[in-house]
């Protein structure tokens, strides 16, 4: 047995670390929340209220480095990059959120059906998931976008159809684990129908996990939109999105003009990190073991 002095010393070290960890966690959450709030307000309020034309071309002011008049600089036809970034983020976030929600709904439906039905429907659905998962998802995404005219909706469909797989797996595993709990047995013994067990006992158990998966997917979907647009397959080049901005700035980067590439890229990084930070906090709340640690 350790003597009292070392034991108390260890306790103190542990406490200090816990306090530090908790406060950095709190600041990370607050910082992420503030950034997300600012970005959401910007993309919601600037386009309708600011009397500015993001497409306004000013060839006399092309490729100006960042200044007070143009904080993010201007692009190769003299459009203000700060305004373009706000509009780009608006499109990227819209694509990200819609694609993540669609992917989560599809994934939850497939996973819940597979888990709740079991037997051959389960095997069939999971093999379907395996088939989708066996193709690199960016390749599959490119294939889907290539079938349509460039625009927002093909990108949403492409990202959603390639990203429901992990949600389906998570939800199925969760349903399987819930289904074998004695409280489901008790409900069956109490005369509950399949529908009642699914709606009252299984679905409420998986929804928090599915919601978390949706939020975690938003940044990923934003990146996918950017990747597709960067490859010239996503949105048409005149429509500002973070991907198209970086793509159209490629030429000027080689000429030494760094700002048209840096700022849209930075926007994507900041937005995704902030959303991921919030999702991480949510995950910590959901995980009961972590939560009990926090309470102690």
């Amino acid at each position, binding site marked *: 047995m350790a003597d009292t002095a070392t034991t108390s010393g260890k306790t103190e070290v542990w406490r200090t670390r816990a306090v530090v960890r908790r406060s950095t966690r709190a600041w990370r959450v607050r910082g992420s929340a503030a950034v997300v709030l600012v970005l959401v307000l910007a993309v919601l309020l600037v386009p309708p209220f600011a009397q500015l034309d993001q497409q306004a071309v000013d060839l006399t002011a092309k490729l100006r480095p960042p200044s007070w008049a143009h904080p993010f600089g201007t692009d190769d036809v003299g459009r203000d990059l700060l305004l373009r970034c706000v509009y780009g983020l608006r499109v990227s976030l819209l694509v990200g959120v819609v694609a993540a929600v669609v992917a989560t709904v599809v994934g939850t439906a497939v996973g819940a059906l597979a888990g709740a039905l079991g037997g051959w429907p389960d095997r069939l659905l999971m093999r379907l998931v395996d088939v989708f998962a066996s193709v690199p998802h960016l390749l599959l995404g490119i294939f889907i976008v290539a079938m349509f005219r460039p625009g927002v909706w093909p990108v949403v469909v492409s990202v959603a159809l390639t990203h429901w797989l992990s949600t389906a797996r998570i939800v199925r595993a969760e349903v399987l684990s819930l289904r074998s709990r004695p409280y489901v*047995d008790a409900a*069956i*013994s109490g*005369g509950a129908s399949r529908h*009642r*067990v699914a709606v*009252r006992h299984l679905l409420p158990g998986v929804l928090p996990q599915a919601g978390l998966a949706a939020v975690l997917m938003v940044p990923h979907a934003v990146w996918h939109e950017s990747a597709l647009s960067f490859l010239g397959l996503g949105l048409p080049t005149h429509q500002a999105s973070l991907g198209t901005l970086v793509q159209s700035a490629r030429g000027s980067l080689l000429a030494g003009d760094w700002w048209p590439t840096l700022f849209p890229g930075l926007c994507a990084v900041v937005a995704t990190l902030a959303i991921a930070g919030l999702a991480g906090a949510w995950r910590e709340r959901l995980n009961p073991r972590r939560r009990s640690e926090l309470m102690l």
Partner: protein
Amino acid sequence: MLELRDVTAGYDRRAPVVRGVSLTVRVGEAVGLLGPSGCGKSTLARVAALLHRPDAGQVVLDGEPAAGWRHRAPRAQRTSFGVVFQQPRLSADPRLPLARLIAEPLRANGRPVDAVPELAETVGLTADLLGRRPHEVSDGQLQRACLARALALRPRWLVCDEMTAMLDASTTAALVGVVEAYRRESGAGLLAVGHDRVLLERWCDRTVGWAELTSA
């Protein structure tokens, strides 16, 4: 009368946990089933309550063979069993307050839920506990609620699978008292599974050891 005839059951057809077991619970009889941990007695209890499909054998309720298992069992057959499990934490949906927990079988069958206060009183739960969720009450209080839920539909048989294994002596005595009071009033049969010989021999009319069941 509840009869289990030549029941073989398990989770893998090649290695059944229960092999060719027959057991009868006569009308109003209390049968204790004694056995070491992991021998398969809980599986047998789940088969008896129509919650687990056996690989072979039959369960006969008052001369009528069980028509299916789990959801495939007709509602009238399923609900003629009140089941209480060993771990109240796992047998209670964590989202439901105790009043909802007790009312769940009534709601599932479209019956009025005004019997809940009376059920709660029977098992000794005070009104202030009924609004709490499972994580806000003790194991004993939660197990009382689970017993009330099992009694809600006035079952003809009670299946208590290690009902008191997690509880202290006074709660054990109280719960056994509730079960016995219900049986006196309704004439229900009881299958009590456990490994506490002293308790089962005091509680039940007849105690069967796992060894005699499987060798016979």
